[in-house]
Every structure is written in structure tokens, then in C-alpha cells.
């Protein structure tokens, strides 16, 4: 196992390099001249533009030189010193400020979605064909079919405004939890639909297996059979489905954060896209791909814990 993990970590090096190269090409070669963007509408003289390009390092060679733009790009990434955003704030500080808000929103959402959808899926599979199963499926399909925005608007208008149960919009005076409660709830409601349907199919594959019958024949209670014997066998697809959504947790939720005014990473990203702040966007892309590779590895390692038949040696 350790040898496997080390090997996988080494594989990360070319992947990360490839990501850096791609983001570099996308933002520095294919993308437009950033000096012009930064001064759009200010009628700059060519001299001023050249000064800015010099300041940003755009007059250096692209790739093939020791101090080329690409080398600087890579250096910035591996030292986690991503430079400054358009508003002169260091990007790393922006991230540090935003991540807690995003995590406060997405981590409870994640656990809420996983626990509710797996439990509902197990029960729906066990009571398959009954009214319970049908109602769960109906709710899931309905949940998947309504647009995300309608939940946000419904939640903000009815639950928060009319009945005053939650905060409508972020306010720094209140605790993060009271600010995040409603978006977390909406996120869970929207998230479970597809998940329940997927997990229910997974559970149905397992629930007719011989070992389930054996477990019942031993005299175990339904709860133990379903949540011990069945669940552990269904772990592989559950791990695949959940661990790979973890990187998204750090990036926050674009829609929820912007509609509820939560100053998390999602909001920062949206702002950066609107103001064409390429250095922020490229940093986000880089961080996301690193997280994705790491969590991919984590999910592979989790497989071995979930299923003894999987071995890495």
C-alpha cells in the first residue's frame, strides 16, 4: 500500500505539469492581451501599455528561457505565491479569507446529501415497489426537474422572508451558521434527487444477493442487514460518487454563494470571471486540478478499505 501511494504521488508530477502548461497556454497565449483589459476605457498610450506589460512580465519570452513567462507561472504555482489580483490583494489572502465560508457552506451540505441520500436509497430499495419507494422516487424526479434557481427564490421568499425562519442574505454580524443554514438546506434538497436514484440502483443490485438472505436467515434485524451488510457492499460506487465531489467543496457553490452573498470561493470566482481577472481564474483552475488528482488517489485508497478483494500489491 505505501509503495502504491508513493507511486501514485509520483504520477501527480507530470499531471500537475500538464495542468500548468494548459492553463498557461489558455490564459497567456490564447487569451487576449491582459494589459489592455486592465486599462480598458482609460485611453492608454502605447508607452503606458508597454510599462504595464513590463511590470506583469509579458515582455519576457513565452516558454524557452530561464526567466520566461512559463517558468514564472510554474514558480508561482509550486510556491503557492500566486501573485496579486486586480484589486491588488494577494490571491492567496483572498483564498484564505474565502475558504472558511465556502467550507462552512459545503461541508454540512456534503454530509447532509450523502447521509440522507444513502439512507433513503437503502430504504427505497428495501421497500421497492411499495408506495414508500414510489413517493421517494417521485420526490427525487421532481427535485431533479425543478431548476436550481427556483429553490433559491422559493427559499428566500417563503421560508426566509414570509415565515422568517432563516436569514435571507449574508450579514457579517451574524454567525456563519445562521447565515449558511438556508443555503445548506437548499443545497441538500437539490442534491439528494439524483443521488438517491443512483444509490437506489446500486442497492437494488446488491439487495437480492445471497449474502443478504443469509444475513436475514441468521436472525439479524433488518437494520443490521441493511446498514451493515448491504451498505458495506455498496461502498465502492458510493466512494466513487462522493470522494470525487469533495474538490468542489473547497471551490464553494457559485450559485448559492452569489445569491446569498456569502463571501466564499465561489463568489470570488464569479467576481473574477466578471472582471476578467485571469490570474485569479488560473489559480482556481490550478488548485482545483490538484485537489482533483489528490482526491482521486484518496478514493482509490478507500476502495481497498471498503473491499478486501481489492489489493494494490
Amino acid at each position: 500500500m505505501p509503495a502504491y501511494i508513493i507511486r501514485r504521488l509520483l504520477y501527480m508530477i507530470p499531471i500537475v505539469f500538464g495542468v500548468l502548461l494548459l492553463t498557461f497556454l489558455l490564459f497567456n497565449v490564447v487569451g487576449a492581451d491582459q494589459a489592455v483589459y486592465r486599462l480598458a476605457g482609460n485611453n492608454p498610450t502605447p508607452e503606458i501599455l508597454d510599462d504595464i506589460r513590463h511590470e506583469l512580465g509579458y515582455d519576457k519570452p513565452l516558454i524557452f528561457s530561464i526567466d520566461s513567462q512559463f517558468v514564472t507561472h510554474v514558480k508561482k504555482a509550486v510556491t503557492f505565491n500566486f501573485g496579486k489580483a486586480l484589486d491588488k490583494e494577494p490571491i492567496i489572502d483572498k483564498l484564505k479569507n474565502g475558504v472558511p465560508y465556502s467550507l462552512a457552506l459545503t461541508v454540512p451540505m456534503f454530509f447532509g446529501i450523502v447521509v440522507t441520500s444513502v439512507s433513503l436509497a437503502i430504504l427505497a430499495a428495501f421497500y421497492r415497489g411499495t408506495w414508500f419507494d414510489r413517493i421517494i422516487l417521485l420526490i427525487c424526479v421532481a427535485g431533479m426537474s425543478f431548476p436550481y434557481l427556483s429553490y433559491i427564490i422559493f427559499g428566500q421568499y417563503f421560508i426566509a422572508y414570509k415565515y422568517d425562519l432563516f436569514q435571507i442574505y449574508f450579514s457579517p454580524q451574524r454567525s456563519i451558521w445562521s447565515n449558511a443554514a438556508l443555503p445548506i438546506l437548499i443545497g441538500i434538497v437539490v442534491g439528494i434527487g439524483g443521488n438517491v436514484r443512483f444509490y437506489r440502483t446500486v442497492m437494488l443490485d446488491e439487495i437480492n444477493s445471497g449474502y443478504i438472505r443469509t444475513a436475514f436467515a441468521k436472525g439479524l434485524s433488518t437494520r443490521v442487514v441493511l446498514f451493515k451488510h448491504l451498505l458495506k457492499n455498496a461502498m465502492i460506487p458510493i466512494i466513487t460518487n462522493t470522494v470525487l465531489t469533495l474538490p468542489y467543496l473547497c471551490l464553494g457553490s457559485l450559485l448559492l454563494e452569489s445569491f446569498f452573498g456569502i463571501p466564499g470561493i465561489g463568489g470570488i470566482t464569479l467576481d473574477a470571471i466578471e472582471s476578467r481577472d485571469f490570474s485569479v481564474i488560473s489559480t482556481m483552475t490550478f488548485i482545483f486540478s490538484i485537489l482533483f488528482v489528490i482526491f482521486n488517489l484518496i478514493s482509490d485508497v478507500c476502495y481497498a478499505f471498503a473491499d478486501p478483494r481489492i489489493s494494490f500489491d
Partner: protein
Amino acid sequence: MNENIPLLSIRNLSTHFFVEEGVVKAVEDVSFDVAEGKTLAVVGESGCGKSVTALSVMGLVPESAGRVVDGQILFRGDDLLKKTESQMRRIRGNEIAMIFQEPMTSLNPVFTIGNQIVEAVKLHQGIKGEHAWSHAVEMLRKVGIADPARRVREYPHQMSGGMRQRVMIAMALCCWPSLLIADEPTTALDVTIQAQILELLRELQKQQNMSVMMITHDLGVAAENADDVAVVYASNIVETASVAAIFEEPLHPYTQGLLRSMPRLGQKMERLESIGGSVPNPLHFPQGCKFHPRCPIGVSDQRCRTQQPQLREVAPGRCAACFHAKGYGD
């Protein structure tokens, strides 16, 4: 225990499945006894309702569509059908244990076999921790698994089919059940392993003095292991007798057909005889005796085509459900 009361006595059991196409009468008016310490073989073709009978006794008929609609299942005189689910849970795996046809899929692949045996021991015997584990090791030794102390920590995929069936037996017997239901325990195994497993079952049955209800489609298995035989055809019992009597003189035409279609040692035959026709669809059983379309007598007999013969005692200790069986009367 009173010698005269059988350990398990099934009376007029009917289990039906309600599916979209109609009602599948998987078990119809089935009655038989399993005597204390004896083995009853329930013999019949696939799909005739043998396994559903077993699941009915365990209270494990798939709830989504199936239901026991009538009858009694008397275990030591108590009707199991009247018990609550939690009462049944104390009986399952404890007093009545079951082993299944597919040793490859009947064990949970993600738990060690020790874990799976200990689970039952803890549940029913109240033995805890290390004691439960040493009991599991002891059971594995009993079913003939070499190096049980090491094997107990292994997973099912590390074992062969025969070993897994031994583990299943160890798991079923770890709480000293008085009745073991073995649903085609050797069908999925090759012949040499089959003989070993049956031998093991006989031995353990003697040791633990339990009754066995052995479900099989293999008359050879029945002949070697059973004391009594119940022959099932299309959800009904057509004949019950001691194993000697049934092989000596089968009374029901279906049993006669089954015996004729068995290869015999020392007899040269071009090809085996078979029973003409095929098993009727349980959604549309034929009128009258369900066997009449395939029966040499019944196919042309007016009564067989219109009336269903009931299982009736035709000689001391043996019953048959055929108008033409010797001793059936009219």
C-alpha cells in the same frame, strides 16, 4: 420431548406470489412432518416450490410480492406463522438454521468469515468477544477446515467453493439449531466435494442430534441421506414415504417417472427415459390433477382431468395424491 410430536409439522401451507400477470401459487396446500433427529428430503424439479416452502418456514418469503396465505407451520407445536417478527428473529439462525445452494454468493464478501460466524453467536448465544471468536474457530475445526485459527480471519474470496459451504455449515450450526434447512446444499459443488459435504452434514447431524430438511432435485442425494422423502410436483406434495419404500415401490406416476429417468449401475441403456412434456407454468396450472397431461394414466382419464386428488394415507406411514395409487380408494 414427546416422541410422537414431530419437530416440524407443516399443515396445509399455501404461499402465493402476487405479480402483475396474476397469482403464482408457489406452494399449495402442502403438509409434511420432520421428525426429531431425522432427515426429510423434499424432492422435486426446479421451480416446483421447494425453496419457497423452506423460506416460508424461515419467515423469509420476499415481502415485496409473496405471502403465506394459508396453513400452519408448527415448530415444537407452536405456529411460526403467528409469531411476531422479533420472535421469529430469535428462532432464525438459532433454533432453525438454513444453508443455501450458492456458497459463492451466500457469504458476505466484505466481512471475514470469523466476523460472520461471531455475529450469529453473539446475537443468539450471548457469548462475547474472545469467547465468541474461539467458538467460531472451534466450529470451523468441526466442519473440517484446516488451520481454523488462521482461516477465521480470512475473507470468503480466499476460499474454494467447498470450503465456503463448510463455512456456511459452521455458521448455521454455531448456535446448535434443532432444525437445519439445507436448500440444495451441494448442487453448486463438484461431485467429490458434494460427497464430503453430505458426509459432514450426516456426521454433524448425529453429533448435534438435529433434524434436517434437505431440499434437493437429486434423488441420489435423497436416497443416501434421508429417512423420509416428500416428492413435490407443481406446488403440491404428490407422495410422502420412507426412503426405502419410495425407492422400492413408488406409488405416484410422477415418482415412478422420476425413478425411471435415473441412470442405473450395471444396466445398459441407449438413452435415459424422461417424463414427456414439461413442468406447467405456475400461473396457469392445468385443471384436475396437475400431472395429468404428462401422466400415462391420467392423460386419458376423465377424473384425473377434472378433479384434483388430495394427499391421502395409502398405507401405514405413506401418503400419495393419485386416484390410481395402490390403496388410494376411490
